[in-house]
């Protein structure tokens, strides 16, 4: 379907598509098998200027919105969700600075993120703080001109690969949700280290480790925004980034559909290509409908978010839930269409199905998203009635 | 320029149909050519009313052409021996020379060459122009080009052939440009038209999907590089007599602006597949690297080298030096066994000149069977193990 992209937006799609086809797809199976981080491909993406898509021009970026990054992520997701996740996580790590950081902080960090010279990461999750962020144990205490961080973050994407980490820590436990703050930690800061690589079901080419803070001392001006604003920044960040996860589901679903249709045209059983059987046709038709519906929703939500910074949550959560649930279903169906071959690692749909699962879990589980949508509906209708 | 006779044109649109470049359109009942025209001539041949013509170059100085006579080959000498392609050139060169009743000469360039010129004579050369000079130890385009250019200017052969090797394809264009004559690269067939002595040079184009025959009608010599292992080497005759002439180039012709510091030989692989008499090749039908093992076993059983289609190489079941076909090597073994190779044209061009071709494929309609001497339709995982067993049995 034609979504009437502008010429510039079409350029972004073309470049990202070429990166997916020429650089990502030929190596994705190998990187997945070896659980290897795609350093070279991320360099290719940097060289193509795409790391700066969402960063304002005054900090060396392209000045695009959440919609432009969605266009690029769709293509990367079609290529490999692991690599796309590494790319998206850098944006997730940069958003807190862009949303709440001081001018000096933006000037200091954003040009290198925009050029891809440095990668960012976002550190919220801990062993006892997943969907319930109030369980955060990591603390930051002001000691003279320095903050001292202690604690451990878990399952942090780009850990060990990023140079800039946006970290959530408790600065005043007595204030509850108002007691959390965000800080920029650099990979070279004393007392900061990464744990061993996690072994994952899918997105194996992405880096996921613990971050360990042991009396990690950072300058006072690394506080992002004001003290106690941490959760607000986190929520805004996730609202802004979730369409990026949603669109990975669309790209992935599209890739699975492409594989399934191609295979169904080639595979002959009972003397005919299996695409001529209605049972297969209906599965493929449903997959196509769902992918397109999800795309329309994510594009719409991303455009809404780009122009309504104060009303992001519901659109953001809705598109994340719909598109990622779709990706799980469509990739599962693609494996089914390919039958035994689909279950084998030689064909790409097996990896796609493994990769799809994380989309329903990370950046807020789909259950939590439904909570958000429910609460938003409650608020909306309270106002109306 | 393409001329369209608007009086004759009936606006039938056949030329528009056949034009690959969308360069002709019928407008108001007459064909009109636009700037996309490449003068390929397809439309001229297709026009039933002969309304189209290509304005060709005026034939200039026809008389000069008669001054050029004889067939000359460039003999490549590397690492102490004459490259095999040179003997193949003598094979085809001999045929052309005999047909034209002219001498066959060879230009041999190198350093510290022993007996190489004599070998060229025994393989069919009537005259060998030899330059044995330390300046020729390494290949440089300029020095090799200078000397060949000078010998050609002095001897005026009508045809000059060289191997389409790295060396031939690199410096022969320099010589042709210097002599202001035409050059056809990578020929696979050569013949002289008896009525006018024009060399018909046939070569693959578009990655081997199309063959083209090319002439060099107005200038001499007619130059071609010839793909290695396509032409047949004649049997050597040690008693053959020929003149070996030590050619003395002028000192300034032995100067090169490019300096070669050293030559590094690299092991291609244990077996160079272009050398073997038997090649067993595998393709996509082997399914995976493990399946490809079967090809090595069959190759072991028959004492052959292992080849592969592009699909197998792209899947990294076997490294690139084993690839046969347009983007790989051209081979012509006595026996070529293709297992699980569909026979895409890109593959076939690289092996079709093999003496005997055996194809094993589960698809009875696979195009590989069109070139196969013997075909077996069946599951190669069943056929090949049995074949290995049977061959071992036979060999005892």
């Amino acid at each position, binding site marked *: 379907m034609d979504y009437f992209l502008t010429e510039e937006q079409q350029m972004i799609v*073309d470049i990202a598509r070429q990166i997916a086809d020429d650089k990502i797809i030929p190596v994705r199976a190998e990187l997945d098998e070896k659980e290897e981080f795609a350093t070279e491909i991320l360099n290719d993406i940097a060289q193509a200027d795409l790391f700066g898509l969402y960063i304002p021009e005054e900090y060396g970026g392209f000045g695009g919105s959440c919609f432009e990054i969605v266009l690029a992520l769709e293509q990367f997701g079609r290529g490999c969700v692991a690599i796309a996740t590494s790319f998206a996580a850098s944006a997730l790590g940069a958003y807190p600075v862009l949303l709440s950081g001081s001018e000096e902080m933006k000037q200091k960090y954003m040009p290198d993120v925009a050029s891809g010279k440095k990668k960012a990461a976002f550190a919220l999750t801990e062993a006892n703080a997943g969907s319930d962020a109030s369980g955060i144990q990591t603390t930051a205490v002001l000691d003279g001109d320095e903050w001292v961080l202690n604690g451990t973050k878990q399952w942090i994407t780009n850990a060990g690969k990023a140079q800039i980490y946006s970290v959530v820590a408790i600065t005043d436990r007595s204030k509850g949700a108002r007691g959390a703050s965000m800080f920029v930690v650099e990979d070279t800061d004393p007392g900061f280290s990464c744990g061993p690589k996690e072994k994952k079901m899918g997105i194996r080419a992405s880096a996921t480790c613990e971050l360990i803070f042991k009396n990690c001392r950072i300058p006072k001006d690394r506080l992002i925004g004001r003290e106690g604003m941490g959760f607000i920044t986190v929520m805004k960040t996730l609202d802004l980034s979730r369409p990026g996860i949603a669109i990975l589901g669309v790209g992935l679903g599209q890739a699975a559909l492409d594989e399934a249709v191609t295979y169904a045209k080639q595979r002959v059983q009972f003397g005919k290509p299996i695409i001529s059987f209605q049972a297969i046709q209906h599965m493929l038709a449903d997959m196509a409908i769902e992918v397109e519906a999800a795309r329309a929703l994510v594009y719409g939500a991303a455009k809404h978010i780009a122009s309504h910074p104060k009303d992001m949550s519901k659109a953001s959560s809705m598109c994340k839930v719909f598109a990622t649930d779709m990706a799980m279903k469509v990739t599962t169906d693609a494996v089914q269409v390919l039958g035994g071959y689909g279950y084998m690692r030689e064909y790409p749909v097996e990896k796609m199905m493994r990769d799809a699962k994380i989309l329903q879990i990370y950046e807020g589980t789909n259950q939590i998203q439904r909570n958000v949508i429910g609460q938003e509906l409650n608020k909306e209708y309270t106002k109306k009635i | 320029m393409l001329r369209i006779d608007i009086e004759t044109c009936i606006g039938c649109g056949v030329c528009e149909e056949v034009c690959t470049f969308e360069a002709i359109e019928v407008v108001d009942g007459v064909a009109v050519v636009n700037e996309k025209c490449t003068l390929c001539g397809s439309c001229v041949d297709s026009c039933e009313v002969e309304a189209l013509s290509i304005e060709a170059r005026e034939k200039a100085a026809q008389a000069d052409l008669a001054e050029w006579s004889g067939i000359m080959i460039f003999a490549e000498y590397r690492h102490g021996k004459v490259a095999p392609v040179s003997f193949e050139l003598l094979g085809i060169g001999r045929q052309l020379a005999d047909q034209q009743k002219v001498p066959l000469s060879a230009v041999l360039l190198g350093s510290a060459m022993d007996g190489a010129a004599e070998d060229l004579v025994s393989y069919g050369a009537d005259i060998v122009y030899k330059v044995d000079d330390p300046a020729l130890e390494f290949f440089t385009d300029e020095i090799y080009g200078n000397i060949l250019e000078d010998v050609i200017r002095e001897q005026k052969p009508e045809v000059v052939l060289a191997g389409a090797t*790295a060396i031939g394809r690199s410096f022969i264009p320099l010589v042709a440009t210097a002599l202001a004559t035409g050059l056809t690269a990578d020929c696979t067939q050569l013949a002289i038209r008896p009525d006018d002595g024009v060399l018909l040079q046939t070569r693959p184009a578009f990655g081997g999907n199309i063959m083209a025959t090319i002439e060099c009608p107005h200038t001499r010599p007619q130059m071609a590089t010839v793909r290695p292992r396509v032409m047949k080497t004649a049997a050597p005759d040690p008693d053959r007599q020929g003149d070996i002439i030590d050619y003395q180039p002028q000192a300034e012709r032995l100067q090169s602006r490019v300096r070669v510091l050293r030559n590094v030989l690299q092991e291609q692989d244990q077996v160079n597949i272009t050398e073997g008499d038997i090649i067993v090749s595998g393709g996509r039908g082997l399914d995976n690297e493990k399946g490809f093992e079967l090809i090595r076993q069959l190759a072991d059983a028959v004492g052959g080298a292992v080849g592969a289609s592009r699909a197998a190489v792209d899947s990294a079941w076997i490294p690139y030096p084993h690839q046969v076909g347009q983007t790989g090597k051209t081979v012509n073994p006595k026996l070529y066994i293709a297992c699980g190779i569909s026979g895409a044209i890109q593959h076939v061009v690289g092996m079709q000149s093999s003496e005997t071709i055996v194809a094993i494929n589960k698809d009875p309609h696979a195009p590989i069977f069109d070139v196969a001497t013997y075909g077996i339709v069946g599951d190669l995982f069943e056929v090949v193990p049995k074949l290995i067993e049977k061959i071992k049995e036979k060999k005892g």
Partner: protein
Amino acid sequence: MNIIVCIKQVPDAKDVRLDPKTNTMAREGVESIMNPFDRHALEEAVRLKEQHGGTVTVVSMGPPQAETVLREAVACGADEAVLVSDRAFAGADTWATTYTLGKAIVKNGPFDLIICGKQAIDGDTAQVGPGLAKRLNIPYVSYVRKITGFDGGALSLQRLMDDGYDEVEIPLPGLLTVVKEINEPRVPSLKGKMKAKSLSLKTLNAEDIGADPDSIGLPGSTTQVVKVFSPEFKGERAMLEGTVDEQVEQLVNKLGTYL
């Protein structure tokens, strides 16, 4: 270092077929692309520019629509683009092509280095690079697989040979033709694409470059294509029959002399 890269727009060769009945090329679905070897030439030029400074100018001789590949080259890092186009250039063989390109390059101005792809995938001749060097009377090295150094006046290179490689030095100005293993071409960048969109191309026709009408296009060509046809195969279909065991038995008997 001011570098010129010669690029050609070609039909995607793997899609080109002759219609066996009409003996004409089937154009359905054949895409025009930048000659793949030229991508590597361009990439190497852009890398040299990034290391040593200077400019990269891409030059293409072809019909007006060759503008597409020139803009693509700009998106991938070239600074300037020159389209050498005239109906009078049509039908040029490599001899007429090197004449035309040589004239155009001289007209365009001084340069330090010319880089070409090893060959174009439509003709596969590999003649334009060496021929162009001769026209311009500059040294050249074919089949360059690696640039190992630059001392300000000369480039150190590795030249791929059939049995290994040569280590060579070439003084500038000079010309190189490159093989694919020299580098991995980049994809276009966003800034490059924006620049490519707005850049005005320089166009040169036969008159602009002062070409002798007898040396260009078909009249200037020394060779002529007189016939095109599909490759024919000599194989005769002799399908073996029977059970697998019987077929294997027959085959081994027939291959007797080879085994």
